[in-house]
């Protein structure tokens, strides 16, 4: 039995769904950012799986995954800075308390 493309796609799908669940239900803003990182990793796993099994001569999926990693690092830095800044003004990181835009 050989490891196939499907196995990696299923793992990626599971990781993505876990990430969505955490994104929707977490109360802590830092945990929401962690869930976003999980989802980005699932996407990267799909990129690399397709790049290995469908495009193993010109590995363009790896190029895209490097870009995704770059953008994810930038997103994490800015996101955590925003969380810190909100924490200073609202004194909490509870997502339910962030109702500044409610009208």
């Amino acid at each position, binding site marked *: 039995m050989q490891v196939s493309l499907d196995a990696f796609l299923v793992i990626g799908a599971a990781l993505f769904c876990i990430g969505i*669940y955490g994104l929707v239900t977490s109360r802590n803003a830092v*945990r929401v950012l962690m869930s976003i990182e999980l989802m980005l990793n699932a996407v990267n796993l799909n990129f690399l799986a397709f790049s290995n099994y469908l495009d193993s001569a010109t590995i363009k999926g790896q190029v895209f995954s490097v870009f995704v990693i770059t*953008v994810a690092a*930038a997103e994490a*830095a800015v996101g955590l800075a925003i969380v810190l800044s909100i924490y200073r003004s609202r004194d909490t990181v509870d997502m339910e308390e962030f109702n500044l835009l409610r009208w």
Partner: protein
Amino acid sequence: MKLSQGVELVSLLVLTAMVVAAAMGVVLSPSIVYAAFLLGLVFLGIAGMYLLLNADFVAAAQVLIYVGAVNVLILFAIMLVNRRKVYREVKLGAVRQLVAIAVCVSLFALLLYTNLNTVWLLTPEVTALPSGIVTLGQHFFNEYLLPFELASVLLLVALIGAIILARREFVPDRGEENLELVERPKELVAVKEE
């Protein structure tokens, strides 16, 4: 079954169990600090999967950037904002949880169904190059040069933006009662008469 295939299968199984269990821990663990460390474990497991997919450079980048930078950043953020506090109950909390679980499980079922019912155009034989790094570098400096340079600009912008967002701009002095608004004085904008 050749030995290499067996090793590949077993290591994929071990990595899958590790990654999925740790990801569930990230989402469900009551302590945010444990969640952050489990997130590091997820990143390491995924780096192992990248190695199974012949992507050695991306695996190294994953370990360096995610485990070394993003995870440490998250830990620092937790240290800065962690205050043990009981969250206020929200209306229909249990219903929300159930709806979220239903949506996630059905999305997973949909993805699984799509995956199992698609015939992928697999390349007939996985021609594993000795190392993909040379190919990757040629891609970066030929057709993906502009995105590559833009990525560096993006990182610089994110760096400056994060510093500006996170720095503490005004520290009100503790000595005297100061009833002035602690704010940067704004320039008056001339109102144009219609």
